């Protein structure tokens, strides 16, 4: 029970879950290990209708990271409910559905559709995808729009709503406070940082979409800093993510103030990474003399406060 974490709508047997967009709907990874060992699964973003996504190339490697511009390719909310959730319901793990859209009406429709399924325990409101022309990040960079969308989706959803924040803002704490005031049950952070790579042999951007979202170990210090700042100004729980690939990365996020941690890009490098982190956590807690994992939640700032 030293790994158990209770969050709005979610009873996590451990605080580790694959991040949305990095795990599909679990089918591929289920061939590699038992998904029931995961605390939860944040499934790939759903939109109102099916989307084909962006042209290729959709990925480009960077120093200790990768840029992606997939463009929310998915079969649409209804098809996810009918074709993907029945499989996921066979595992003893908490399913968090990522909700995306181009318009407030689309977000509301997707939130209603996804939250109505009993397999879905919570929604992750995606207002931070940098790779779509309409919607996505534009809702996540203006606190007023973010709050309004959070209110609408909260009203439409029968399950708790976690808002996924974009790091591409001037003040992450203002964004966090705005969605908390609008009724968010929790925050997930961070989504990718907007970036670009250029092929010097052609002089043109490598990604067909030109820009993409930077993820991987390169962004972890940014994510830790943002979780650290947000955890001190909101009372709702944070699921932290950004560059996690080891058990110590997980603990860094917890120390910074997160209550659970999602693993994204590392699943591509090592598809067994979530399993390995979960298995390693108890040993690492022993080594560090930590009883329950949340005993150290937010300790990074609490210790500084007590020192002054």
């Amino acid at each position, binding site marked *: 029970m030293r790994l158990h974490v209770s969050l709005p709508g979610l009873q996590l047997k451990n605080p580790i879950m694959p991040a949305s967009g990095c795990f*599909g709907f679990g089918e*591929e990874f289920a*061939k590699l290990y038992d998904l029931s060992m995961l605390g939860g699964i944040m499934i790939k973003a759903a939109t109102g209708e099916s989307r*084909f996504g962006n*042209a290729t190339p959709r*990925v480009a490697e960077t120093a*200790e990271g990768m840029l*992606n511009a997939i463009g929310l390719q998915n079969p649409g909310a209804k098809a996810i409910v009918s074709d993907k959730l029945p499989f996921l319901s066979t595992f003893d793990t908490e399913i968090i559905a990522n909700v995306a859209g181009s318009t407030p009406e689309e977000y509301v429709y997707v939130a209603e559709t996804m939250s109505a399924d009993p397999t879905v325990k919570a929604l992750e409101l995606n207002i931070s995808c940098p790779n779509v022309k309409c919607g996505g990040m534009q809702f996540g960079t203006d606190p007023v729009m973010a709050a309004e969308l959070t209110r609408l989706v909260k009203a439409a959803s029968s399950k708790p709503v976690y808002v996924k924040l974009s790091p591409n803002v001037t003040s992450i704490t203002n964004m966090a406070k705005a969605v908390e005031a609008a009724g968010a049950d929790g925050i997930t952070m961070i989504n990718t940082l907007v970036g670009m790579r250029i092929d010097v042999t052609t002089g043109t951007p490598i990604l067909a979409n030109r820009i993409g979202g930077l993820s991987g170990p390169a962004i972890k210090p940014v994510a830790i800093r943002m979780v650290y700042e947000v955890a001190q100004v909101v009372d709702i729980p944070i699921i932290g993510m950004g560059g996690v690939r080891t058990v110590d990365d997980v603990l860094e996020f917890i120390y910074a103030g997160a209550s659970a941690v999602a693993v994204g890009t590392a699943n*591509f490098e*090592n598809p067994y990474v979530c399993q390995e982190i979960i298995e390693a956590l108890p040993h690492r807690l022993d080594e560090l003399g930590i009883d329950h994992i949340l005993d150290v939640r937010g300790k990074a700032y609490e210790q500084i406060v007590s020192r002054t």
Partner: protein
Amino acid sequence: MRQFVTVLSNHPIAKGAMEMKVSVENSVIAPGTFFHVKTSELLRRPLSVANVEGDVVTFLYKIIGKGTQDLAERRPGDVLDVLGPLGNGFPLEQTGKRVVLVGGGIGVPPLYYTRRRLADRGIETVAILGFDTKESVFYEEAFCALGETIITTVDGSYGEAGFVTGPLARIEADVLFSCGPEPMLKAVAASHIEERYVSIENRMGCGIGACFACVCEAPGGYVKVCSDGPVFRAEEVTL
């Protein structure tokens, strides 16, 4: 799925082509499938299978960037983290048919293992292998040992001058298996051979079908190169 394999040898065999042999645990490998290989870089590199002999798998690769440069520096005894075999290969059930194998450059390797497995089944094959220049030709003898083999070079320094499409136009065959650069695949996909299969290469993320990075345009949407392919019927993809 994941194996830690030992490097047995790793050296250049032609201009722009390295050959690496590794010993694997599970050598039940279909021709046309690939391994997703961990290098010094974040994302794995997909390498097609050039040959399987006992528990020894051969990869041929071209040094393009940091990941393949790192692979080129591996020495015998080094251990590689690989996922695989992954994907769907060439359909070998071609009894009674004549198969033409068309490869271009670093797309040639999977066709060697494929040809060996077709030969095991007594299926008649003819190979057309295209290279840039004489120094970049590899595996000619090995291919010739398995049947008629036509080499082309773009600069005319060896074999027939020009592209693989030159000799392909005069070949009579029922089925075509192809792997190589996209313009070549596009040309052979439009050839006169009735049943045509192409093996597609793309930048990959996960390699197992979860991330949607390596998709290829297809009639009515996209297909995933890593898990729906990499081998497709020519009609299944929009090249």
